[in-house]
């Protein structure tokens, strides 16, 4: 389907979901739903650089936390509505991503990945040493008295994250079907051939890194209001690091729907599991699933479905391609 149609459909779905949630009275639904939606954004953002362009980012927690702490700084200095803070968080994370990318993206993808891993530690170090935002002791954030819309504050946060999830998925799909997305795929498949074919690889990689980082920062900005107590240990939580990699890998990295599937599946399971098993065991299972999928089903659930579909049809019809005339 055409892009315009998709955006319209996405907006409609978003509105429908928003309206439906008005009917929900169980506050826990909003708490859990927020986390799942947040992971949809994080996974989709990760996948733009990881699945589409082929560059692995292990520092999701850093971009995410930068967004959160940008909101903290803004909260301490001004009163701004959360959507504005999200934009600010996105800008900060986007710039950091751009800067780090500029230094490391001229080299092989491996070095970029290692640099992101190390960067996560360093950003954490900076935050821990910065007393203005609470340092290692953390900081308390008081939610405003009135939620901007009707309903509880947590419902407001949930709604914001829902809109954010719809936007990021629509962005991902738009990219997939555009010349930019083809350029990303070329870089992923064979960077040297892409460059020789006229694709400005460095520029595109920087775009992917900045966009991915910005979306992660935007997802992080509402976090202080969600948790009300923010400390480096929780915001740099191991869970963000592994989930943002596991969800796209398990869901499927080649399409916008993979991260969504991964986030909804794993996110929901984890929300249910944290009340029954310890969070450490929970994360262990996610890690093991990641390893399992990477070895056995590297194209994720989407890949499994596609190869099942391909095997069933008589002639060898290839998987839906970006920017072709075939129906989605």
């Amino acid at each position: 389907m055409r892009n315009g149609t998709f955006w319209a459909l996405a907006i409609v779905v978003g509105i429908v979901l928003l309206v439906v949630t008005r009917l929900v009275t169980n506050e826990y639904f909003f708490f859990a739903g927020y986390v799942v939606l947040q992971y949809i954004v994080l996974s989709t953002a990760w996948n733009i650089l990881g699945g589409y362009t082929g560059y692995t980012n292990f520092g999701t927690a850093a971009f995410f936390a930068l967004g959160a702490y940008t909101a903290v700084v803004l909260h301490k200095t001004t009163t701004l509505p959360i959507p504005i803070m999200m934009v600010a968080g996105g800008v900060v994370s986007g710039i950091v991503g751009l800067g780090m990318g500029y230094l490391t993206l001229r080299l092989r993808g491996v070095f970029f990945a290692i640099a992101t891993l190390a960067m996560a530690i360093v950003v954490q170090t900076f935050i821990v040493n910065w007393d203005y935002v609470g340092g290692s002791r953390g900081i308390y954030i008081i939610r405003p008295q009135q939620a901007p819309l009707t309903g509880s504050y947590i419902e407001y946060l949930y709604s914001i994250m829902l809109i954010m999830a719809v936007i990021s998925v629509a962005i991902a799909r738009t990219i997939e079907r555009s010349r930019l997305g083809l350029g990303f795929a070329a870089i992923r498949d064979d960077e040297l051939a892409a460059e020789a074919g006229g694709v400005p690889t460095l520029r595109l990689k920087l775009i992917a890194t900045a966009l991915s980082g910005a979306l992660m920062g935007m997802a992080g900005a509402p976090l202080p209001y969600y948790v009300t107590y923010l400390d480096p240990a929780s915001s740099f939580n191991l869970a963000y690091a592994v989930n943002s990699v596991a969800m796209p890998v398990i869901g499927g990295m080649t399409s916008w729907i993979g991260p969504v599937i991964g986030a909804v599946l794993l996110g929901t399971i984890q929300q249910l599991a944290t009340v029954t098993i310890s969070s450490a065991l929970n994360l262990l299972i996610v890690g093991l699933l990641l390893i399992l999928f990477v070895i056995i089903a590297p194209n994720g659930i989407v890949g499994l479905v596609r190869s099942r579909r391909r095997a069933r049809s008589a002639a060898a019809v290839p998987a839906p391609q970006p920017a072709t005339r075939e129906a989605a």
Partner: protein
Amino acid sequence: MSALLEVNGLGKRFGGFVALEGINLAIERGDRLGLIGPNGSGKSTLVNCLTGTLRNESGSVVFDGKQLDGMVAHQRTRLGLARSFQLPKPFHTLNLVNNIRIPLLYTVNARPGTHLSEAEAETRCHELLGQVGLADKAMRLPRDLTQVEMRKMELARAVATQPRLLFADEAMAGLSPSEVEEILAVLFRLNEQGITIVLIEHIMRAVMSFSTRLVVLVAGQKIADGEPQEAIRNPQVERAYLGE
């Protein structure tokens, strides 16, 4: 009129190893240049330096009056300098149409005044595939192609960029005689359409029948440059190929 490509004193080292030294070369419009030399003589390195994949330490390269030094590969391709790879490097998750579409969109559509609409680009992709006999495999993935089909697609990808100068880097290695003829036919036709071609090859029969001019590289230096029959009879060339 100045040459299409002028190379002056080009040199390239890898650490202590001198891969190319003092290469001077002038390629005229419409030429069919054969570039030969024993393995390790620096042919591919030269192509890599000229197309921007590698950076040469010394010397200058001027393409149609424009200084190329400092330009990265994609900029040179956009100027009209294309190459096909020795070992085909397809975009393996994309079908053939998209493999052609990408260089098309990123060169032709990036040049001022030559923008193609989506429909025009789609038509052109199928056209290009048809020219190398791959029209019926347009929707297939690269892994479904035979060796020679893969080579043809490599050439089609390079042609999609509407080059004025094309480096065909060992496009015929490992092919059967009839397959070599197929590729040669494609190259002749491209040359007739106005593309200057540099053929880097080991298959002497093909090189001799194709080239209007022959350049021989040995151990990083150019030792012959001229009429193919004469260049072959150069004693240094004989020595390089047959030994003392």
